[in-house]
């Protein structure tokens, strides 16, 4: 906040004296020189400019890009008036890796490897929409066993992702114990993903036409044990966090998103379902994955506040664990890979597939010109749209509520910036 008073602001060519020669006697009386007059005017002008610049009162607080609260390198420029936020603007892009440009020079298996790393916590879920789009273009459908395995791993990726959220949101609010329980119990799920695919965070298991390999012996039984541990963890979080009066008073009524505003800003996933909108792509979109064979329900909550977002995600985790058990019980036998040529050249065309990823709706728009590499892949990520509501949502809240609201919106930086 600087204002400069510089005498030389007015250009010297405008050297007309204020007091003209007609009233020259006044100038003589007042004994004012041109120089002083000009300096006076310049001072007034500078003052006026400074007043306009200083119009917004209050302090500008720069949260991030290095900060314990933001899930990565997100920068939020908040203008504060005491403890209240006047305006807050997220500035993304500190982690942009140029995915869409990278995909133009990579073959389809290579792209599958890369896109694992967009939402690095919901591991398997990143690959699925892209593979489905490529299969759509090639007019190939994976066999039922592969679809079941895909759906099971998809749901396990969702469980791993949301478990992190269930531990992380209390930490943002100050209760440090929950995140240790989350990481402890998430290990069981990640171990199962690793036994099947070889990688905990980046499975790279999908191939066009099916999955890479079949499940190892004993996997089904171990996964069911892991799902039981997930449910125990959900009960523990309910006791430790959700029932806690302090947590509720911090979250209830904070960051309310009305359903039409949510839809207008392009929110998706649990954020929208917590505002009462009954929208779930697993049920509504026509996807070849195995969700239509399962008996499950979509959880919504009528309030749109931070507590309902936490609540909806907790219920979804439990629901996913039941879904995984159903999938494994009903696993059909058969091949895991459809007949596809060894070198994959996807025929020309365009395809857009959107799936219900853990963070929201993720979609890949694949344009192919019939070559080894896609011509253009546009990645629609959930967190990018989820963050777009934050300037609207963060107006007028207190500084501690910034942490609550951002934690409840739950974004992953890789998902925002790609």
């Amino acid at each position, binding site marked *: 906040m600087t204002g400069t008073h510089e005498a030389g602001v007015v250009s010297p060519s405008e050297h007309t004296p204020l007091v003209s020669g007609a009233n020259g006697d006044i100038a003589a009386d007042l004994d004012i020189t041109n120089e002083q007059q000009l300096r006076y005017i310049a001072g007034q002008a500078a003052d006026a400019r400074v007043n306009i610049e200083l119009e917004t009162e209050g302090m500008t607080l720069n949260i991030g890009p290095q900060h314990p609260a933001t899930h990565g390198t997100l920068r939020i420029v908040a203008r504060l008036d005491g403890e209240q936020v006047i305006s807050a603007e997220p500035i993304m892009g500190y982690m942009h890796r140029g995915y869409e440009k990278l995909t133009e020079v*990579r*073959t389809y*298996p*290579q792209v599958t*490897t*890369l896109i694992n790393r967009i939402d690095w916590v919901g591991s398997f879920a990143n690959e699925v929409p892209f593979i489905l789009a490529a299969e759509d273009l090639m007019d190939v459908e994976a066999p039922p*066993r592969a679809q079941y395995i895909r759906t099971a791993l998809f749901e396990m990726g969702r469980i791993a992702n949301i478990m992190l959220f269930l531990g992380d949101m209390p930490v943002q609010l100050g209760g440090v*114990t929950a995140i240790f*329980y989350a990481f*402890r119990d998430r*290990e069981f799920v990640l*171990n199962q993903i*690793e*036994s*099947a*695919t*070889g*990688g905990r965070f*980046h499975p*790279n298991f999908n191939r066009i036409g099916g999955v*890479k*390999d*079949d*499940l*190892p*012996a*004993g*996997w*089904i039984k171990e996964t069911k044990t892991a799902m039981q541990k997930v449910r125990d963890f959900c009960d*523990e979080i309910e*006791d*430790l*966090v*959700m*029932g*806690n*009066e*302090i*947590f*509720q008073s911090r979250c209830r009524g904070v960051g309310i998103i009305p359903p039409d505003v949510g839809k207008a800003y392009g929110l998706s996933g649990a954020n929208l379902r917590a505002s009462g909108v009954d929208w779930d792509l697993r049920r509504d979109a026509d996807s070849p994955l195995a969700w239509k064979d399962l008996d499950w329900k979509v959880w919504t909550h009528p309030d749109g506040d931070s507590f309902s977002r936490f609540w909806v995600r907790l219920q979804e985790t439990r629901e996913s664990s039941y879904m995984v058990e159903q999938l494994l019980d009903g*696993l*059909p*036998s*058969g*091949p*895991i890979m459809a007949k596809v040529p060894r070198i994959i050249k996807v025929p020309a065309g365009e395809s857009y597939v959107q799936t219900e990823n853990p963070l929201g709706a993720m979609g890949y728009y694949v344009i192919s010109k019939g070559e080894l590499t896609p011509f253009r892949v546009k990645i629609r990520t959930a967190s990018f749209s989820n963050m777009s509501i934050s300037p609207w949502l963060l107006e007028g809240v207190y500084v501690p509520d910034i942490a609550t609201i951002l934690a409840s919106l739950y974004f992953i930086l890789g998902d925002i910036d790609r």
Partner: protein
Amino acid sequence: MPKVPGLVTGLGVTAKTFFKTVFPDGPTKPPAPSKGAHTVQYPHVKEAPPDRARGVIALHHDNCTACMLCARECPDWCIYIEGHKELAPPRRAGGKPRQKNKLDRFDIDFALCMYCGICVDVCPFDALFWSPEFEFSEMKIADMLHDKSRLADWMHTVPEWGAYEAGAEVKTKKLPSPSS
């Protein structure tokens, strides 16, 4: 009965975890937090990763014909292959000498490697295998380039193919016998 306030149930959860960690065998036995906690005290105790874990890539260079497919398909271009053609004796007497590819150099730079497995999948001759070994950190980043002999050494650590779940139609493959 009035509902217990959430604050008290929260305290109960932490207390319960405390007792489960300190007395994992029940209150009658002496405290054993090292056993009750979920921490694995690496490097004193090592957890074995599952057999399929993508730790390091091993090369069975008897099968490798330097076809360059893995080097081409690698997303990071971290595989360096050099080979030359040799003349091998003909199969039958009086026949033409055959041209064979001989592998000179096969390096994988594990500092660049994304551990994606495309090279292992794409190899038409089954020369590359995954091994769950992960403890190969080095002091100098140049040492992360594993050359042909080191990659062949990793073959000792490649586990046998495991059985599949019921209903699978995929056959378990056999590892090649150790190279000469």
